[in-house]
């Protein structure tokens, strides 16, 4: 997306001002939520691991536009963006970050384990590669029960080194399952650069070797993501088997709050920051006259209000009584 107009053209995306602003707003919600989370982490309101997806917002936002409420979503431990884009309320999300009972996982999961049955959001999985087999099973259940639903599965390029990635891609292709694989290739598996860990650095080539239709997409371009995802989801929903998108992206922040980032150059980070998906869409909207300063300020104020409400909700939340520690280890059954 180097110049205005690249978005339209040979795609089926019907881009109007409302939709473009919606995409911007969704990405900004994630950005501002995570920036606030980082602050709350230093205030020790949020503890444990905190993995921010700042810089990668376009992938979750672009893809979610193509899913219906009936579809299923699975994501990794860097999943605040996916949860927000999927429609989990910011309130219960923030309460979960705090570990409060009102959180979307009742406080049991925290940042890495966001779950929500209402939006079919199946976590929040903190074992790299561990969610891919689950996606296979959810899709298998849909196929066996004749439901035209899509299971979207988001994971990083680090997962491509795991056996579960290969087992799952094979099963999806072998059984022609309705799975959309979305690889968020941010070039680093924690601190290990892709070229230092993979002999084949084009992840979508690996997917192609399983005979899955696959493509690489500019992960910093929300509209390119939406276009590619729309095409892929339509095929998956039509029963044409799995599809695979490799989204080339970059994490602007550290891997987690404990990461000193000794493994990458600051200059490299700066280069990628110029490609920021929020900036790019914002600039384009301004250039095309779809967004002015007043509108931008209005969006930011709206999000600020949502954030304040979320934080107040989390602050006002309650702690799970210790007596309920073992609740939900097993399903309670009538005696």
């Amino acid at each position, binding site marked *: 997306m180097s110049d205005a107009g690249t978005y339209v053209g040979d795609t089926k995306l019907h881009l109007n001002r409302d939709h473009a602003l919606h995409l911007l707003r969704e990405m900004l919600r994630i950005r501002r939520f995570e920036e606030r989370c980082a602050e709350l982490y230093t205030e020790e309101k949020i503890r444990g691991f905190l993995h921010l997806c700042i810089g990668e917002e376009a992938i979750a936002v672009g893809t979610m536009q193509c899913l219906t409420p009936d579809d*299923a979503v699975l994501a990794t431990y860097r999943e605040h963006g996916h949860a927000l884009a999927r429609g989990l309320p910011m309130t219960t999300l923030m309460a979960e970050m705090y570990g409060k009972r009102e*959180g*979307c*996982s*009742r*406080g*049991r*999961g925290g940042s890495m*384990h966001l*779950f*929500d*049955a209402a939006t079919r959001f*199946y*976590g*929040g*999985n903190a*074992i790299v590669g*561990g969610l*891919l*087999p*689950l*996606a*296979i*099973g*959810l*899709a*298998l*259940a*849909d196929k*066996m*029960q004749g439901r035209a639903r899509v299971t979207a599965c988001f994971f990083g390029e680090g997962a491509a080194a795991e*056996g*579960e990635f290969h*087992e*799952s891609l*094979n*099963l999806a292709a*072998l059984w022609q399952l309705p799975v959309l694989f979305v690889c968020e290739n941010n070039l680093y598996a924690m601190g290990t650069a892709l070229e230092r860990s993979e002999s084949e650095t084009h992840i979508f080539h690996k997917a192609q070797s399983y005979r899955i239709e696959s493509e690489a997409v500019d992960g910093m371009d929300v509209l390119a993501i939406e276009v590619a995802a729309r095409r892929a989801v339509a095929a998956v929903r039509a029963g044409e088997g799995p599809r695979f998108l490799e989204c080339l992206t970059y994490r602007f922040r550290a891997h987690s709050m404990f990461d000193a980032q000794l493994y990458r150059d600051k200059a490299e980070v700066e280069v990628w920051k110029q490609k920021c998906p929020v900036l790019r869409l914002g600039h384009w909207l301004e250039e095309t006259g779809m967004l002015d300063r007043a509108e931008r300020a209005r969006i930011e104020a709206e999000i600020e209000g949502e954030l304040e409400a979320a934080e107040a909700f989390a602050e006002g939340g309650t702690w799970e009584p210790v007596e309920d520690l073992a*609740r*939900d*280890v*097993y*399903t309670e*059954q009538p005696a």
Partner: protein
Amino acid sequence: MSAPTIETSYREAVREAIRDAIKRDPRVFLMGEDVGRYGGCYAVSKGLYDEFGPERIRDTPLSESGFTGAGIGAAMGGMRPIVEIMTVNFSLLALDQIVNNAATIRHMSGGQFSVPLVIRMATGAGRQLAAQHSHSLEGWYAHIPGIKVVAPATLEDARGMLWTALEDPDPVVIFEHVMLYNRTGPLAADAGPVAIAAAAVRRAGTDVTMITYGGSLYKTLEAAERLGDDGVAAEVIDLRSLRPLDDATVMTSVAKTHRAVIVDEGWRSGSLAAELSARIMEQAFWALDAPVGRVCSAEVPIPYPKHLEDAALPQVPVIVAAARATLGL
């Protein structure tokens, strides 16, 4: 008057349980390596592929983590999968899915998602298959909160535990000892589902409580018979459920006999036998007249030659001696 019985085998009882479950519930399907065309590594599912077809008797690639995780996902998606892992040895390749997903998702999601999955696997030694095909890791699995673990030892349990496990809203792992598949005997013609939570007293006695499960049950019963010949009345408890453990049945027996011996094919260190021994100490210490005895596998990778394999596993004379020791005999 007793109900009519049929002569059957443990293998056939498991097969009948699978067939019954698939007929009863359209959500049930069997998935695993060579369960279909081949008929199952231990011939448990022989004939079911022809009867039910490739969708419901689903052959998988050698991807234990992949298809076990797929079973978890399918269970969350409304199916009632039976995942067969060929043997416990290969289940180590699926530990991530069993321990990190199946066992955690309900709790970690605040009770929003359950995993009504059944995993069956063969376990144990005795067929001279050497170290990588002879593990008894039931105790490892029983260590994990969030899953239930059962070990059917009898024909009734082989026939009846599966359906009860499938009706359970949480993941249940069923261990079938390889030395039991060929065991034959009478089974009630109308045998059906059985409760899985409680232990069973397989032989009543007053002098010593012998606690065991799975493949060691028959060795323990044989030992009890020999003890009986010497005038020692041994009570034999078949745990059946390894998680949760039925403490009440064990403690009631120990309160009566004042002596306990645990027979466990797992290695002694950190074993189910260790857990039971601790529970007896905690709950029945003042009832004991002797230290709790344990007969476990020797702490070696199970060797191939028969004489060494036999020496590594719990055997009847050792069990008899352990029981006699609690009586000062």
